[in-house]
């Protein structure tokens, strides 16, 4: 099982995403932004960071990169794609997911362990969770405010496309506490928090049991492997 992890200039969490893929049991393949070849990967991760310096708009320039042409094509054909933070911004700019992401309401970058409710398990990346499960995933961003017009919002809610909802605290002013969503088919998922930072005991969020022991993020990666294996 091969999962591609894209690197744009300014991508920061690619090595962490690769580690998450390996810990979940698949082979991580590095995909360079300027290369249209997807090297036969079975799924793609668009990791977090500040691709192209967040210039113009977060993810705007990355969305035009050669590798994205191939990924958009493949995603439309059913390839599982996970967009994390900046990756979510790239998905939105590529129109693979609806809506927009703007500056946090409180104007600051925030790094916190965020509680999320998993509201849709019918996706390539969340099938390993239970519906309604509360998970803790690190969140760290300055431009994480999800925004969409009323019509789009009604559609998203109505069709059950909201995949993650912020619980307890809305860290960035996202409308309807939306933390992440999926496309209709469920192969493309985008979220602001970083599952790749909650995959290895000792380096994840604190839990009631022990410091830094949270590994809720690993299920994202085992889910996609599970789906691909059983496909």
């Amino acid at each position: 099982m091969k999962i591609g992890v894209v690197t744009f200039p300014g991508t920061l969490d690619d090595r962490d995403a690769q580690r998450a893929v390996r810990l979940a049991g698949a082979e991580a393949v590095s995909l360079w932004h300027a290369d249209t070849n997807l090297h036969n990967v079975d799924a793609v991760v668009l990791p977090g960071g500040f691709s192209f310096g967040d210039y113009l708009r977060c993810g705007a320039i990355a969305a035009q990169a050669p590798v994205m042409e191939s990924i958009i094509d493949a995603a439309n054909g059913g390839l599982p794609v996970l967009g994390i933070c900046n990756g979510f911004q790239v998905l939105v700019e590529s129109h693979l997911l609806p809506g927009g992401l703007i500056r946090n309401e409180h104007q600051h970058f925030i790094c916190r362990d965020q509680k999320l409710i998993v509201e849709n398990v019918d996706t390539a990346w969340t099938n390993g969770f239970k519906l309604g499960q509360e998970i803790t995933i690190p969140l760290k961003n300055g431009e994480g405010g999800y925004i969409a017009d009323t019509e789009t919002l009604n559609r998203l809610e109505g069709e059950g496309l909201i995949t993650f909802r912020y619980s307890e605290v809305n860290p960035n002013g996202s409308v309807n506490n939306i933390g992440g969503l999926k496309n209709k088919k469920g192969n493309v998922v985008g979220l602001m928090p970083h599952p790749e930072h909650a995959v290895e005991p000792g380096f994840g969020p604190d839990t009631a049991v022990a410091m830094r022991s949270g590994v809720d993020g690993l299920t994202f990666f085992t889910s996609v492997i599970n789906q691909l294996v059983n496909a």
Partner: protein
Amino acid sequence: MSTVVDTTKDAKQSPDKAQPWKELGLKLEEYENIKEILGRRPTSAELAMYSVMWSEHCSYKSSKIYLRQFGEKVTPEMTKNLIVGMGENAGVVDIGEGWAVTFKVESHNHPSYIEPFQGAATGVGGIVRDILTMGARPIAVMDQLRFGAVAHPDTARVVHGVVSGISFYGNCLGLPNIGGETVFDKVYQGNPLVNALSVGALRHEDLKLAKATNPGDLVILFGARTGADGIGGVSVLASETFDADGPSRRPAVQVGDPFAEKVLIECCLELYAAQVVAGIQDLGGAGLSCATSELASNGQAGMRVQLKNVLLRDESLTPEEILMSESQERMMAIVPKESLKAFTAIVEKHEVEYSVLGEVIKEPRLYINWGDEEIVNVPPRSVAHDGPVYERPVLYPTWLDQLNRDSVINNNLRRATEASELSEQLVQIVSSPNQASKSWITDQYDHYVGGNTALAMPDDSGMVRVSEETGLGVAIATDANGRYCQLDPYQGAKLALAEAYRNVASSGAVPAAVTNCLNFGSPENPEVMWQFKQATAGLADGCLELGIPVTGGNVSFYNQTGDVAIHPTPVVGVLGVIDDVARRVPSGWQDQGNNIYLLGITRDELDGSVWSEVIHDHLGGKPPIVDLKGEKALAELLHGASLQGLVASAHDLSEGGLAQAVVESSLRFGMGARFWLNEILERDNVDLTAALFSESTGRVIVSVGREDDVKFFGLCEARGIPVLRIGVTDASEKLEIQDVATWNLIDLKQAHSSTIPELFG
């Protein structure tokens, strides 16, 4: 653009031409010295080079004679793991398994007062480049911030700018911020201190040095284009040449682009892996002047440089301005001719611009041409290494005698007589700005990126894993106390070292090396020089006694508000090594039913303490005693205990004393505890105020699982470490101190966490 350049030919032909050496900050004898070195007057460009390279900031002329101690007061045992010592961009320490780490702390104080955001941002950028230059992948950053009084209207401006700047630059580079400190004191009002630390990891064989040794190797400038950043002072030379409207539009501030630096990091690491770079230097203070002269001088070689080859952002720059520019995110590489193709393939892949400026030559001479005209012809050593060395006047400050007599006890500073008053004082202290939670600040920093952060704030040290295979890692703690240093700079420096050392040991690592950032007032003030002399001696003596060497650091002088110097504020960073980060020890307890032990002796030492500041607004007396032998023994005990897994948590005692430590340890995971102090009162013969708030050194509180009690106690006794059982953890969600008070943790958390957001949120 036409430029009337001042060439070496002109310099020979017009020996008596008036030059603005004074405006550029040089003394007459230095100007005369330059003429002697060159055998003629310097050209405009040469004058600019010498003036910047011989400035205090670049040449360390006032501090050199004292910094020597760090290299002299060492033993072979101490330096056996030192791969690169002082004098390079950063020190490099062998940590085992073929790994090494490089770390350093630097200041960017004055720019951060002028333009807090960019000043702090470029401060982070600069220190990270120093680490990158050693051949390492930067893996973490920390920062040590000192601002003016919280109530002063200007403080918020500086706080917001600096924190945003660090957040912006550090986060964008993808470096976790793993710790640091923030202090408010009116002495920093007109002169905030912004110190930035970075650490990087490398395999031994990847080490790179900043030297050009091989004649024929190419000199290549790559990264961002060169613009007018940071040349404010040098622009006086523009009036020398031709531009009527030149000087006024030259900024003194540097503007940083962290995206450019991130790209540069990945590009450099790929260049290093491909082994196409023979030497490398980053461009920081004094830009090209520094990079060229240092690379040549370090390699005992020379260079020929064609300045017109520099890629410019601003075509109107004069040659002097190009040489002085402090534009960020630029590196200079020495590349063997046969590696040029491979070099350019890599930089082009990363879309990084580069240009070949010239080549290395055998003759130890730096020749810089502007087109066909020679504008610089100097011995590089004279610029980079043989700068002036001052022995500034040193004068004992006689006011110190009175200040030292003005102790807490001599002043009869009132102590609480009722438990309720003690309780109030505890809450006052833990909620005071310097003691309150800084998470409003630190939540603006990414501490997850890289996936290797084992410990970060609020724990005692920041700890990062270096080897994913074995868990080998490093821990870093930084500390400084300006108040202690004001009372006694020698002891104060030792105290900072002791605290950082103790912090590293508390987290389970073995202290191995030291860096420092020495923030002081004007060296032209003999009393400040006395403080500097004392502090450097204290630090050097302390390092010798602890057996860990200084690997490098930074000096920042001229930190004053008007005529008033800041308190001497030497920031000391200690790096430690841990064989497996899984063994790291958190600063608070998470399990109920554990015993809590206090290691070390408590004395009545309230001079310079947080208690004296918060309760009485007093600074006087002498700082706490430092017993480095005792600190060493304590550290060894903690290491031994953590190897056996006996210690569930450890938190060192420092500012705010035992009270601060127990509150922090309880709030860390929200696990309550019950304490009794009577044994401390009895054994150490102190009162409740001292028991709670004294800042005696060599003390740590640890929590130990019931099953490990006997072993732990035995270990302490065997090593002669004073130990008292003073409490037990429980799930009550309360903190109880017998004969003082019981607090709900939720109320303490509220008091501890709301101060900073209320002031600055």
